[in-house]
Structures are given as C-alpha cells and as structure tokens.
C-alpha cells in the first residue's frame, strides 16, 4: 500500500480547480466535515465551485459568504440549533448562489447511485412535494418534470420518482483516523460518507489522527473507507473545527456563533478570512488560532472514551513528519 500523506496546501493545489464539481463530507452542520480543506480553498481563491454536499456546514456557509461557490446542491441549509447559516442566507436571498434543494435520504441515494454506476435511483420520497416540482436551476418551469422525473414501476404500474445520480469530481472527507494509505475509521454517525467516498472520482481524506496500519488490521470491520478508493490523506488534527469530531473534540460554541455572525456581512466575512484563514499556514499556528487552552477544553468531552481502543496506535506529530517525507507526493523525483 502506498503512503499517500500530503500537505494541506499541496492537496488543494493538486486536487481542486475553479469551476469543478466539489463535494465535502460528511456535510454535517455541527459534526464531521472537512472544514480546514475549505479554509485552504478560500486562501487559494478557488471560485465558481459547483458544491455537492449532504447538508449545510460552516464550510458551505463560508463558501457562500466568500464567493467560492455559485451553485449548491444539498438537503439542508441551516446549522441546526446554532441557527440559520447567515452566509448561505445572504447569498441565496440575493441570488448570488443558486441553491438546489434535495432531502437527506435523496442526497445519499444520489451518491449511492453514482457509486454503483446506476443510471438513476428510484425513490418513494420527494415525489409530490416541491423538491420534485421546483428546480432552482430551471426556475421558469413549474411543475418541473426533469429534476425528479416521474417513473412507473414496471411491476405494479405505480408512480414513483427517478433521482439523478451524482459523481463529484472530488470528495474531501473528514475522518477520525486513517493510516497513511487511506484506510479510515469514522467515529460517530457515518452520515453519507460511505456512499460519497464511492461516488466521487477522486477522494481526499482529512483526518484528525494518523494511526498505524496495525490498528486497521485489528479492526478491519470498522474500516468504512478503504485505501483502494482514496487518493490522498491530509493529517490535520482539529480540522473540523469549529464543528465537532465525535470521540475527539466538541463543537466550539463561541466560534460557531462568531463565525456565523461574521459571515452575515461582506465586511464580517473579510474579517473572518483575515483573522481565521490568512493568520496561519502551519498546523502549529492553526492551533494557536483555535487557542491551545480552548483546544484542550474541546478535547475533554463526553465522547472521549470512544477513542480508547485506538489510542495506542496514534502517531505522534514527529512520526507524522517523518512519514510525510516518505509519501509518494513528497519523494524526490515524484511527478508532483
């Protein structure tokens, strides 16, 4: 198995481009999400992204506020108990971002269909509602008959819906732990990450921990994303901040609210980018921005016991630095 460790900045340079169909995972509003990858995309000024995501997250909120994306397809646009996502609202209400609505099951089914190579996925939900009848991408047509076309069950003659499958060009997925080649274990809800990882044409993992492959061989049943479908692995502890990573850290209540407040205006968004994206380049500096004491507080939480079985296999920062030097992306003479 290849060592696929890659630095955050190089991963964004190599795997993203303007105008691409980009997906992030898990795409949860409070939990697992590849947020630090999104911060780096903002730093590298990516634009015109067609964003495919299960639900809203602070990454979606940031991309909408900062003008990174102009189209979004998702099931949910809020931040749950943290409230409406102000960056999303502002962009959608001014027409700057076109938001196509789906539902949580339909996003997963669209990934599943893409993963299986199916032409479409039959659905018993969404039909009869305006998720079927209204398309933000085709605003002049009502009822829209091409977003979720009606199909007839060939066995019973009953009417159902056909969901279009989706195969994002790239999925960047947050995981709790991975080995250097991309065998990943996810704590907490998997949400749609299993099928997203198989639907995307390229998969990059953003992981809180790098573990020894011995850990993977001890718990192979728990490896829901195997290295055979993974292209690169970014080690970045606290990478889902200010959202939570089950077993590792809590959502950061203060920063969730601060971030959402700032993303509610152009001036605030500019300030956010200055203070929380341009203010760091290295992981050490990133942790300073989070705040060392704050990070420790977030890591002392009610789910810490979930990490216990894996702790002995977690690689230290020093070990990760050494492993990084042996990566296929870093070796001398590598094409990259």
């Amino acid at each position: 198995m290849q060592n696929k460790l890659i630095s955050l900045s190089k991963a964004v340079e190599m795997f993203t481009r303007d105008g691409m169909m980009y997906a992030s995972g898990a795409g949860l509003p409070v939990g697992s999400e590849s947020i630090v990858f999104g911060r780096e995309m903002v730093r590298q000024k990516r634009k015109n992204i067609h964003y495919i995501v299960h639900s809203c997250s602070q990454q979606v909120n940031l991309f909408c506020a900062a003008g990174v994306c102009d189209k979004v397809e998702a099931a949910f646009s809020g931040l749950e108990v943290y409230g409406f996502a102000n960056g999303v609202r502002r962009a959608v209400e001014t027409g700057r971002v076109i938001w196509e609505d789906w539902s949580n099951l339909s996003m997963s089914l669209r990934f599943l269909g893409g993963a299986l190579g199916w032409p479409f996925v039959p659905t018993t939900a969404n039909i009869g509602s305006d998720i079927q009848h209204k398309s933000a991408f085709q605003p002049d047509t009502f009822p829209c008959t091409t977003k979720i076309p009606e199909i007839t069950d060939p066995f019973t003659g009953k009417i159902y819906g056909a969901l279009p499958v989706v195969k994002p060009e790239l999925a960047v997925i947050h995981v709790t732990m991975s080995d250097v080649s991309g065998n990943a274990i996810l704590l907490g809800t998997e949400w749609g990450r299993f099928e997203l990882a198989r639907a995307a044409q390229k998969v990059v993992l953003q992981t809180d921990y790098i573990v020894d492959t011995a850990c993977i061989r001890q718990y192979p049943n728990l490896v829901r994303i195997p290295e055979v479908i993974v292209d690169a692995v970014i080690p970045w502890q606290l990478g889902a901040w200010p959202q939570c990573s089950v077993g590792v850290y809590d959502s950061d209540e203060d920063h969730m609210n601060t971030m959402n407040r700032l993303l509610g205006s152009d001036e605030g968004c500019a300030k956010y980018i200055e203070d929380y994206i341009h203010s760091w380049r290295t992981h050490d500096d990133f942790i300073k921005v989070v705040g060392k004491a704050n990070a420790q507080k977030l890591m002392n939480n009610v789910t810490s016991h979930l990490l216990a079985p894996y702790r002995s296999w977690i690689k230290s920062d020093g070990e990760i630095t050494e492993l990084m030097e042996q990566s296929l992306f870093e070796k001398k003479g590598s094409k990259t």
Partner: protein
Amino acid sequence: MNYSKQEMMAVATGREICDGDLCIFGVGLSMLAGYFAIAHHAPNARAITEGGIYGSTPVGGLPWGIEDNRISANATCFTGAIDALGFLVASGRCDIGIIGAAQVDKYGNVNTTGFWDKDSREHRSHPRVRLNGSGGANEIGCGCKRVVIMAAHEKKRFAERVDYITTPGYLEGGAARERYHFVGGGPSAIITTLGILRPELVTKEFMLDSYFSFSSIEEMKQQTGWNLKIFPDAKAVPEPLTRELEILRSIDSTGMLKKK
C-alpha cells in the same frame, strides 16, 4: 400558570408518543418532546436520529445537532443516513416522526424551505427569505406511520397554501396522497403554540381539536390563515401535570424551553 407556553407544547407533543413506538426526532423542541415522552410514559419507545445514531440519551444538555457529541456519548449503534432514513423511515418501519414547520397549510403540507413575495408556488426567482430546507423531514413525511408537526401559531405561518411544499401532508386534500403510494399515513396532528389541530377523516382538512388553557377557540381561529373549522367535541387540553413538568425540565437541563 406555573409553566411556559413552550413547555405546554412540548408536553402535548410528547403525549402523542406511545410506548413501544419507533420514533425519529429532529433537533431542538421535537427532541425534547420525544425524550420527555420516553422518560415519562413511553419507556419502551426507541429513538433514532436521521444521522443514524441509535439507542442514546443526550448527555450534558440538549444536543446542538442530530450528530452532536451530546447524543453520541452512549449510543448503541452508529450508522448512516441510508440506514436511518431509508431502511427505517422510507421503508415504513418508523411509527412516529416529529418535525417542525415554519409554515403549514390546511392540508398539513409543511414549508421549511423559504418565503417568496409572490403568493404562489410558481415563483420563478430566489426566495425573499431562505429557511433551512428539508433535511430528513421529507422522508419522514412520506414514510412514518404518524407525523406530528410543531409550529408557532401565527396567521402568516398558518396559510391557505404554503409557499413551497417541503414535506407533503395531504397535498390537495382528500385522497391526494394515494397517487404517490406513500407508505406513511401522513400528519396526525399539528401541535401549535395555542392548541392542537387534527385532520378531518375524509377531506383531510386540519380542524381545531383542542386548545391550551391559556388560549381559546377564538384566538386559534384568529391566528389561522384559513377558515378554521372546529370539531364538535373541541375541548381544552389538560394542563401539564406536576410530574410531567418535573420530567420535562430534567430533560431540558440547558433551559431551551425557558429561553423562548
């Protein structure tokens, strides 16, 4: 009155849950109502979240989301959206779902997607006010045997027709759901900040079933955007019992219901 209107709403919603039900709750008020029911009168009800977290009880306060650490600390199973919303909800296994509504109409159709200026579902531009969208509510509305809708009872939110059908209720009323062969039975109640509406058996139009003691038939009619009909046996909802309030408040340890 030794309880808040929100607490009355949560207790009334909790009373809709029966012992043994397989239940799916959203975040916030619906989760509080659900966990209240389990602690109070439905010890064998089982709660799932649409994220696929099963068998857990919140720790340390009301969860920030359906995937939060507070609801992940003592789970018996972590799975995913296809499992929860597909295998358990869309399949028809789930007994009851509780969803919120920003706007609801007389056939129990729910809008949580947005408000438009043009008073029609044929609006062609982006919304004036963007709301949250479906999440898993659409599947819950299609697949759960019973659906309970929670909404603030204000005239602008109780409309003749919603701006956008995020989650289907009875669509155009009567037998309209049958065209789509939904496995779920449709909404069984709308619990509002003033009382409870239930659907008429044949037309599926929501009518006034009961009112909270601090409200009245008159107030509910005034705050409804359609001509609200009244069931002949409309009555007052029993006030929360002391034990109900004690248990509800122990679930609501972060005081969400008191803030509103």
